[in-house]
């Protein structure tokens, strides 16, 4: 395994108490594999990636867990590394395309220079002209004119910035790339094109990818495996086809039936009645229980275990949806 995350927990400290944004996350990622994480806004998707990269704000408290990353000669636990060691794995081992890609470029430096900075940080011996060549290559790869590398971010359009940020994420040939809703700020057509390109590049370079989105249609397009996240936890994880064809968690089921066709209109996940739980004081027992039509007294009391129901199909539910079963969500 290239990356295996075990029982990852990270809480934010606030005045009202802990926000349990990452609460016991487990997954594995292989070379060349693409994992999609889907979940409602605020369920903790970004927090997972920030915990893996250890780029947490001051009020974040890392609780438990391990992030085993295979360096080529044996796995290391990123969680235990000292900061100076960790720095070596950022961008070169795991790089990231941030949610707000528009603002990921520093306005006062040339775009090319910002990519070169990343390259020279990890390959200090690479001469400048080599680095520039590399940037030109990357620009071509993501569909940007290499002559634009000496321009400033404000001279780029939104879509171009997006591509530049992708090029930057690829700069150090990372083994894993985390893409956190990289296309949300773009219009649908550009969004689609960039999405396809990301997938193409990921396959071509045989990188592992974690793609984060609240949009199941987008996830469907880019992922081999899909993890469904709800209130700080993964509720279901399986390969893409299984998740679509045979969802076992009621929440996933609801998601799938809210989107009859994955290429249809892209709307927010509002069709499951009820509000997502407050991560501050999550309900005891199953966090989905208040919205779940199958909930019973056990669900309200006992937190369901995240277990492998069948091979490579993980579900956290006391009463998984059976094949052919029909679950109805009632909007009151």
């Amino acid at each position, binding site marked *: 395994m290239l990356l295996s995350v075990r029982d990852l927990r990270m809480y934010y400290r606030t005045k009202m108490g802990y926000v349990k944004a990452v609460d016991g996350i487990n997954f594995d990622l292989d070379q060349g594999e693409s994992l999609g994480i889907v979940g409602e806004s605020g369920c903790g998707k970004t927090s997972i990636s920030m915990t893996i990269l250890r*780029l947490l704000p001051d009020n974040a408290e890392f609780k438990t867990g391990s992030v085993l990353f295979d360096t080529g000669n044996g796995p290391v636990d990123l969680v235990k590394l000292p900061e100076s060691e960790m*720095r070596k794995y*950022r961008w070169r081992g795991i*790089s990231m395309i*941030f949610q707000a890609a528009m603002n990921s*470029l*520093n306005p006062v430096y040339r775009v090319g220079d910002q990519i070169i900075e*990343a390259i020279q*940080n990890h390959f200090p011996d690479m001469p400048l002209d080599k680095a520039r060549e590399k940037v030109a290559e990357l620009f071509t790869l993501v569909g940007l004119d290499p002559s634009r590398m000496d321009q400033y971010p404000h001279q780029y359009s939104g879509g171009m910035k997006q591509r530049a940020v992708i090029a930057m994420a690829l700069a150090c040939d990372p083994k894993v790339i985390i893409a956190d809703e990289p296309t949300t700020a773009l219009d649908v057509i550009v969004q689609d094109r960039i999405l396809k390109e990301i997938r193409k590049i990921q396959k071509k370079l045989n990188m592992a990818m974690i793609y984060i989105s609240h949009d199941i249609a987008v996830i469907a397009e880019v992922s081999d495996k899909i993890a469904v996240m709800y209130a700080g936890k993964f509720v279901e994880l399986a390969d893409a086809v299984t998740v679509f064809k045979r969802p076992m968690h009621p929440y996933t089921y609801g998601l799938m039936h809210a989107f009859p066709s994955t290429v249809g209109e892209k709307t927010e996940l509002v069709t499951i009645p009820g509000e997502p739980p407050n991560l501050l004081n999550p309900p005891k027992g199953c966090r989905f229980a208040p919205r779940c039509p199958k909930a019973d007294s056990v669900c309200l009391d006992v937190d369901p275990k995240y277990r492998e129901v069948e091979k490579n199909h993980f579900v956290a539910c006391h009463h998984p949806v059976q094949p052919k079963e029909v679950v109805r969500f009632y909007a009151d």
Partner: protein
Amino acid sequence: MLKFLGKRVLQIVILLFIYVTVVYWLIEAMPGSFVDQYLLNPKLTPEIRENLKRQFGFDKPAHIRYLIYMKNFLTLDLGISFSYFPTKVTTIIAERLPRTVFLFVTSTLVSYVLGYSLGKRAAWKRSGILDKTTTFVGIVFWTIFLPLLAIFNIWLFGVILKILPLNQFIDPNLWKTAPLSAQTIFIRLLLTALVFLIVFLIALLISNRLKTIPAKKTMLYTSSITTIVVSIVIWILSGYSIYAWDIIKHMVLPVLTLTLYSFAGSMLVMRDTMLDVIREDYITTAKAKGLPDNVVRDKHAARNALLPLVTNFVISLGFTVGGGIITETMFSWPGIGRAYLEALNTQDTPLLIGLLVFTGIFVLIAHLVADVLYAVLDPRIRY
């Protein structure tokens, strides 16, 4: 860039004309002037009186005088001072301007460098010890009653520690036998400082091209230290070093006082904008790239926070000039600010107008410098 500069210069020239006009009429409206008092002197014969009136232009109506003044202003002739009678206003200003400019430039440079580096560190470790102490001390200095700070400094360094002279520009006893005037020595000192500044800037430019951080540092340090050593040697060899030293000793306290007073402003602004910048996404990106902490802080965060700092310089120009007037008065530092107070007390109108006009020019030039700096720092303006 050139177009931008051209536009700015034009704006500034227009502003200057408005300003001179306002100043002229303001002072003109001042009831009673030196001339009136002077002309009332019963010993003067009517003839002399008329003569004097003509000489100062008081036989003509006010608006004609204004036009004449503006015409003369274009040729940089600001008339003749009343209180230093035959001396031209421009001569007085020319003598005093370098001292004020020096005081202003040094304390501004030092306080901005200090404010920049303290502010960025304070914000980077928000609520740390450094942040708490610098914020507290900063606000106290920022709001301290400036004369109190001056008195305190004089008392501490001059009376208690006895390491610095109390006030004045020079020590009169020493200069009785001096071969050159204090002004000449002072100008030469200024030139030395200018040379140092130029060398430093060139070194900074070169070091920006260098790759590794140690190479950058060596470049900066060696060039600065070499220039300092060379200029000290030259001064010692010239034989004027005791006089130069005397001037320097007298300069320390005013510069220190004005610096302490004004550094807090830049520091607080730097801290507050840094706090904003740190939240920007490109800072997270820089960290994610695996850059070391201080590179993220200096190259990415602080560099962006510099822009509001430049804006702040322009906004606080007025305060700094006010601070300069107070400092010069407190330390009997014979610059523009002191002359201003003297001219007010003696109702020396031409000198008063001249000083105000020069303060205006000075502020506008500083404004222009800040604009250029801003344009250099912000790529969004360049095109």
